[in-house]
């Protein structure tokens, strides 16, 4: 695992130094002193990432087999991955839908979806909470803390 990390860090460092920093960090042409350039600090970080990657690689080779403890095993990793994918979809969907549906309704759907995704033992309670919790939070944030909680285009709450 340490090897993977080390290789990952070195690749990330190369990507940063060779592609990301030159392309995505803009620097004015009239920088007088190299240490003042907006590029200076990102390059240092890129270099350090590479060094740490190298370090991980070396120590990882020394201690093959030992080192980090293995993560808690789960019964069915394939299903686990599926659930993770579902979670990712859930997050992306919530984020996309939020401006249109409003924070309250999106949260209710997200709550139910997540509760069933983790196969709750209390489905009825989960549904009740899914409705009540976002409403309470809405009441608190909108009316006590006076935050403009996005209401969406469909149903507006008072």
């Amino acid at each position: 695992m340490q090897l993977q990390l080390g290789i990952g860090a070195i690749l990330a460092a190369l990507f940063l130094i060779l592609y990301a920093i030159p392309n995505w960090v803009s620097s004015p042409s009239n920088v007088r002193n190299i240490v003042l350039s907006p590029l200076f600090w990102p390059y240092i970080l890129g270099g350090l990432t590479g060094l740490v990657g190298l370090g991980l690689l070396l120590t990882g080779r020394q201690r093959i087999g030992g080192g980090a403890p293995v993560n808690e095993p789960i019964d069915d990793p394939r299903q686990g991955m599926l659930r993770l994918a579902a979670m990712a979809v859930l997050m992306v969907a919530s984020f996309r839908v939020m401006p249109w549906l409003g924070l309250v309704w999106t949260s209710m759907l997200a709550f139910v979806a997540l509760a069933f995704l983790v196969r709750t033992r209390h489905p009825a309670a989960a549904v009740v909470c899914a409705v009540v919790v976002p409403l309470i939070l809405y009441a608190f944030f909108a009316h006590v803390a006076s935050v403009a909680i996005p209401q969406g285009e469909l149903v507006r709450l008072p």
Partner: protein
Amino acid sequence: MSLFDSVMAGLALVGNFEAFLSLVIGIVIGVIGGAIPGISATMAVALALPFTFPMAPINGILLLLGVYKGGIFGGSIPAILIKTPGTPASSATILDGHPMAERGEAGRALGMALWASCTADFVSNLALIFFAGFLASFALSFGPPEFFALILFSLTIIAGVSGESLLRGALSALLGLLLATIGLDLVYGTNRFTFGDPNLMGGLNFIAVLIGLFAIPEVINMVWHPTGHVGKVQKLGSKWVTFAEYKRCFRSIIRGSFIGVFLGSIPGIGAAPAAFLSYSEARRKSPNRANFGKGEIEGVAASEAGNNGVAGATLIPLLALGVPGDVITAIIIGAFMVHGLQPGPMMFVLNVDIIYGLFIGLILSSGILFIVGGLAIRGFRPVADIPKRILMPMVLVLCIYGVFAVNNNIFDVGVMFAMGWVGFVMGRYHIPAAPFLIAFILGPLLEDNFRQSMLMSGGSPDILLRGPITWFFWALTVISIVAITRGTLRAGRAAG
């Protein structure tokens, strides 16, 4: 006017029921606000501000200070119970507080957090009262080069919170430093990794990153392994903190308080680094070093002492110089101005009654915090009994609301989600999250102060060693690095 007269004038201002009540209300609002992630102490103070406009100046300011102090403590409640720091300052509390809660000792952790907070608060208030003048003049001798040296030293904390592997801690820190570069460049105003998105131009929102990194991975972990918690009791527990434990942690608490006072009196650092520094110092000095990060009560005590130690001390630059020490005091300064008070040296001459009134109120506040905090812990007791597979969706929804509310921006919710996955993957690879966070806070400060120093000197590095303060912190940095290297080598030999 003699000291006695000043104290009497102050007493006359605050020696009434209304002043006392304002303080209590403030602390109650603060504890509740701090306990709700996303509201945080900062927002609670900002929300309470308009309500203080019609009040008498001293009562209004006392209320805000109550919110501030209550908020800093309140943040530790969700940090311990649901691994979500209610306020950035309580991130360090998670490290040992949450493992304790998982062991069913949340009550003990919360109790210690309260005791440590109140003690540190008291120390901090005393420091404000007795050393305001001295510490304020000291704070003004901190220019960019001094800051640079101080922050460089503070970054060595990373070694203390890296857990099993220093290299993985460093990797985590670098990731934090890299993500902190997103946004507009300080000196030239050019874009860095913004991809033309106006939301990225402001940089990643700190609270969104913080909550994403600590709370969301818990939710994702639950998705990955829905029954992983079954069999583990997550209860408040019957065990309460004992006086013997308090005595055992007392040294760490006092040390943390002084670290808090010191960092608080220098404008621009804030409570989160103080908590981490206090934590890593406690870990370094403690005989139970190996237990830190696995639910060591001394870790909770040190973190909470560090962050509450800041709360009184940030008033030092505010009252003595008119300079806000952090975001919260910047808002509180607004309350002074609305009432026509101008914080600064002249205030000690013109409004000495208000100054001493504030001092007396602050001394009271530590006691009130103790009572209100104790009640709050009992009030939040039910959280520990919610079934985890219902609690996690609740945490998710709460985080969505909270993160949105910080900057009224849905984009930040996306940042939180994305950081959640980063945190989850880091967890799978046993990369600790705390170094990331410290680096994310301190990285921009380090870079900015370095470049400001270079601007001051016209590019000459000599300025970084311009005076005794810089020498002091450079020396500390070198000592820390040597100690860390030796420790790592020894550990490497022991393992190999």
